């Protein structure tokens, strides 16, 4: 029985020692060497600090394969990694560190300077140095013996409605459940060549990284720039013979928006999977027109149930205006729709909240019992023994053909350019600025813009965005700003969101 994702690496490294496992635009690494690096990092962590077990280690990541040896290194040490993008604003990094209280932060030569701006007095360790530690196999064997599959593997942060990001803690077991399902359901084998688009602090990349390790495949990290300056994207996919992509819906949309296939098409693609937000059939039809023989899979699920809980293999034609199903639950995952009170299941054709039961459930939000209790609850359909389900906050209903159809969110959370954002987190950041008197955000779903309404003595869009950049990543920036000397209030003396919506958003 596999107890950890390290078993994936162990097995593949034995079968394919000299095969390239990961590559980016500057570096590539074989299975054998990657395994050695990860073990060296683990040995370094254990020998240099009293790290213990099941503690968080932050990995300040760049879009480089080096970061991955840090991830697996932390796992070999018996602890879990929390990836944080080195380009995150320093204030936001501080919030994450406050939640995690990590045993160490791993930096690179490049990212070390970021930590000068961040309040943190624990150990800082440099990845390149850790990688040079002589491997102490005996030490690592001892740790392996004590490992169980419900030990945490990683914590990935998502936007939080109270202004503090939440760290979703995921176990080895959940990732094994997901990756084994992917292999079986989509027929992955050692010939898989993945083109990674998702950043490593985004859980979409979990599927890339561990599908590669599980199957003995190869993963290429596609340079980020190729998704805006797309002239070279197709050449890149062809040159590397990439046959599988698991991308954010927004990445597929960019390809359609910029009409990337008008000059050249990918020649090796067999499988295209997408998730993160609703896939418009207009975009998918563009892909299907140029690449009719590819298997397209719509994936759905929040980070809290380990990437995805449903899938839909696109098996018929769709009009541009039709909605694409999110499909059916993966094996070993139970999905049901609960009513507003989360007390009972809804009727056969009614809309309800998607709730999940199974090994895929995250362990909870790290160091946040309150938020964990809100979303991870006792199964209301089973009062007889402790059994946790996760309530997604997503509303859905079943279509005639048995496929699940996504309807909307239950709350203020939005999906914007593939990122999950709590609008209140943006509001809190804006309201914290000294020159802003009041503010609120509304999402314009047609234009796909976060619209900010703010009250201040004078218009200050530029200054506001600049200040916001110290607290929020760019993807959380409002896309349209409306200045008011006085924001309209409703009869409860609250900002009149309804009026704003009616008058400013069509």
């Amino acid at each position, binding site marked *: 029985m596999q107890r950890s994702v390290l078993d994936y690496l162990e097995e593949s490294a034995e079968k394919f020692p000299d095969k390239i496992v990961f590559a980016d635009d500057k570096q590539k690494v074989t299975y054998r060497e990657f395994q050695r690096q990860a073990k060296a990092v683990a040995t370094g962590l254990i020998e240099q600090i009293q790290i213990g077990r099941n503690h968080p280690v932050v990995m300040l990541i760049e879009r480089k394969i080096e970061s991955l040896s840090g991830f697996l290194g932390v796992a070999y040490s018996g602890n879990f990694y929390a990836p944080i993008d080195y380009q995150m604003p320093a204030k936001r990094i501080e919030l994450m560190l406050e939640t995690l209280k990590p045993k160490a932060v791993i930096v690179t030569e490049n990212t070390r300077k970021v930590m000068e701006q961040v309040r943190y007095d624990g150990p800082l360790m440099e990845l390149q140095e850790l990688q040079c530690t002589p491997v102490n196999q005996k030490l690592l064997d001892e740790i392996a013996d004590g490992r169980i599959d419900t030990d945490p593997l990683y914590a990935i942060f998502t936007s939080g409605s109270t202004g503090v990001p939440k760290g979703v803690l995921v176990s080895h077991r959940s990732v094994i459940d997901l990756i084994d399902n992917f292999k079986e359901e989509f027929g992955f084998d050692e010939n898989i060549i993945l083109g990674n688009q998702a950043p490593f602090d985004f859980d979409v990349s979990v599927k890339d990284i561990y599908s590669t390790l599980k199957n003995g495949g190869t993963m290429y990290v596609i340079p980020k*720039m190729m998704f805006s300056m797309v*002239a070279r994207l197709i050449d890149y996919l062809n040159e590397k013979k990439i046959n599988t992509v698991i991308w954010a819906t927004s990445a597929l949309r*960019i390809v359609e928006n910029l009409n990337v296939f008008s000059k050249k098409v990918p020649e090796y693609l067999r499988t295209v999977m997408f998730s993160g937000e609703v896939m418009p059939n207009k975009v998918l039809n563009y892909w299907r027109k140029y690449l009719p023989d590819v298997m397209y899979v719509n994936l759905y699920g929040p980070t809290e149930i380990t990437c995805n809980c449903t899938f839909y293999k696109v098996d018929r034609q769709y009009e541009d205006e039709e909605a694409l199903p999110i499909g059916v639950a993966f094996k070993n995952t139970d999905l049901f729709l609960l009513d507003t009170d989360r007390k009972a299941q809804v009727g056969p054709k009614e809309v309800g909240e998607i709730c999940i039961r199974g090994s895929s459930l995250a362990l909870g939000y790290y160091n946040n019992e309150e938020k964990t209790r809100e979303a991870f609850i006792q199964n209301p359909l089973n009062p007889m023994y402790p059994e946790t389900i996760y309530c997604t906050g997503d509303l859905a209903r079943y279509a005639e053909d048995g496929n699940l159809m996504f309807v909307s969110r239950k709350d203020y959370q939005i999906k914007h350019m593939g990122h999950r954002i709590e609008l209140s987190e943006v509001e809190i950041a804006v309201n914290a600025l000294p020159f802003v008197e009041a503010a609120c955000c509304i999402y314009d779903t047609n234009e796909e813009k976060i619209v900010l309404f703010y009250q201040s003595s004078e218009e200050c869009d*530029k200054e506001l965005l600049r200040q916001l950049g110290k607290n929020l990543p760019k993807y959380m920036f409002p896309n349209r700003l409306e200045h008011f000397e006085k924001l309209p209030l409703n009869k409860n003396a609250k900002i009149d969101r309804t009026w704003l919506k009616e008058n400013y958003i069509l």
Partner: protein
Amino acid sequence: MREQLLDILNDLRPDVEFEKEKKLIDDGVLDSFDIVSLVSELNSEFDVEINVMDLEPENFNTVEAMLELIVKMQEEG
């Protein structure tokens, strides 16, 4: 034309000093979503059709480079 372009850019990203930036793409100042909006705006405002093969960093790193691209496209038009 320069004014018109700067208007579009400032509308798109009020937080960026476009006249000062020399590596809008290489430094990642403009991301893929900015580029998608920008290309569609440029196409309609200047009546050009920016082609996928024109989407190279050297055409978008500076305001000047973008102007050159637009002029070239209009002449070819």
